[in-house]
């Protein structure tokens, strides 16, 4: 390796390392602050980087004042139901759009594309009025509601189905499978990586959503992790160690899942995000 090549490599690492520190630093600071006393967190002279004793009591206090088990459940239930519905309905529609010929197909697919071009806020007031009229505010169903079907998922999986070879379906047809059987037994298993990608994408954005849960589930015990944090910030105002404890309690499950399945995450986002 030449000297100039080594220099370039060194510079690349230096640059990437600096960037990586900037990405991590807020999380490190979150953890450190969450374990400090209030006076440690606001001490400027000397500035305190590491807490003298880990103040786990901050977490205990946040957990006592907020029902995090309920929040985890609400968030998990919303994510799971949104993933289930979007995968099921999108896969069905996507297969029909990709492979079957029927009157109205292009028109209906046009509706799917149209939905994807419109900013989502335009749906929110009417969706809220519907949930309200059904008397379903402050329920898990309300959290699921906008994610019952997914135009984006339909579009994504249609791309996927179109990329699969046709021979297998023809073989299934010769074996006497009807269209439904071909879809379930042959096509769905082949689309597995597309389904995984859509599932990760749906779960992640459901978890991050703030406005909808804040609007539709105003009761503390019906909130999601995101919308509960918005409330907690108002309640604790300047008690930063406790605010940081609450933040950590809200982000650790997703971080852990991400670290464990990072390959699937990144590939899922690359395939689904790339088609958005």
């Amino acid at each position, binding site marked *: 390796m030449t000297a100039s090549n080594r220099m370039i490599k060194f510079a690349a690492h230096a640059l990437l390392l600096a960037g*990586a520190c900037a990405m991590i630093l807020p999380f490190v600071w979150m953890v450190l602050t969450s374990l400090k006393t209030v006076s440690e967190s606001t001490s400027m002279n000397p500035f305190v980087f590491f807490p003298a004793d880990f103040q786990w009591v901050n977490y205990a206090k946040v957990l006592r004042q907020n029902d995090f088990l309920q929040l985890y459940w609400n968030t998990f239930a919303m994510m799971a139901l949104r993933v289930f519905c979007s995968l099921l309905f999108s896969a069905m529609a996507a297969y029909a759009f990709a492979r079957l010929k*029927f009157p109205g197909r292009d028109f209906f697919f046009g509706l799917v594309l149209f939905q994807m071009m419109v900013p989502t806020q335009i749906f929110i007031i009417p969706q809220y009025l519907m949930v309200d009229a059904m008397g379903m505010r402050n329920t898990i169903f309300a959290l699921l509601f906008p994610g019952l079907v997914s135009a984006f998922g339909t579009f994504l999986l249609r791309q996927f189905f179109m990329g699969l070879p046709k021979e297998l379906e023809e073989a299934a047809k010769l074996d006497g499978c009807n269209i439904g059987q071909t879809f379930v037994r042959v096509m769905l298993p082949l689309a597995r990586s597309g389904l995984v990608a859509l599932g990760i994408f749906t779960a*992640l954005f459901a978890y991050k959503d703030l406005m909808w849960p804040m609007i539709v589930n105003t009761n503390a015990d019906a909130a999601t992790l*995101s919308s509960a*944090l918005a409330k907690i910030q108002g309640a604790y105002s300047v008690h930063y160690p406790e605010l940081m404890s609450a933040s950590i309690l809200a982000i650790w499950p997703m971080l852990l899942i*991400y670290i464990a399945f990072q390959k699937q995450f990144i590939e899922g986002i690359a395939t689904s995000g790339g088609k958005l």
Partner: protein
Amino acid sequence: MKKNWNEWSWGWFLIAPTIIGLMVLNIIPIMQSLYLSFFKSGDFGRGNVYVGAGNYERMLADSQVMHAVGNTLLYTILVVPVSIAIAMVVAVLLNGKLGGKTVYRTIYFIPMVAAPAAVTMVWRWLYNTQFGLINYMLNQVGLPSVDWTNNPKVAMLAIAIIGIWSVIGYNMVLFLAGLQEIPKDFYEASDIDGASKFRQFFVITLPLVSPTMFFVLVTSIIQAMQVFDVIYMMIDVTNPAYDRTVSLVYLFYNNSFKYSDKGYGSAIVMLLLAIILIITVFQTRAQKKWVNYM
């Protein structure tokens, strides 16, 4: 089309849930939002009064709406080019033969998997005027403290930094996927010609990754135009920087759900729709000038 009732009925059956859902959840709501934008909402949702173009007239005269348009565009102009440029550089570096590639990739993507509400809280704490880590570090190198979250002149910059930080990993992943599709022989051929790495970047990489670039640009702009979470978590209505930071979606939220004027909120969201459509049409036109499809 030959009549094939079996295939037709399967097709209709399979798309039925999605199409019914889309009609109820999306298509009809678009019309409802448009309809609502011609009404003034009475108290407690009762007594909607038809006001014709009243909400739109009020909106065009409302300095806060005009501020919000400016703020939203400013946020977009600050976040989109910088985040795309940084993500591109990171992706190109990671696309080479470098040790620890996957570790870097994992780290840069982390902000993407954290809830914006949590992330903004810690940034707010980092930005804290008296006790924040950022001001402490500025002071250490002899610079004065900055009132990041309350000074109307810098608050938008502080918000944009969070926006850039959050989205770099996402764009990087998309660019990496685009870069991997460039055939390796292009680089080998130009290596033989003795082209430098920098020249290769501008002559090979950039033109060939331009379809991905176009896609990322369009989606980033649309995302940025809908900014809400970070500003909502950082700037409350009483903040002196509110007028200089409130975005269109934040204003939509406040009017629709805080002040319960859903008619006015609907008018604001129609304005957002119009702005996004104009930008998208403009981009699609400009696309022909700089995007190379292989």
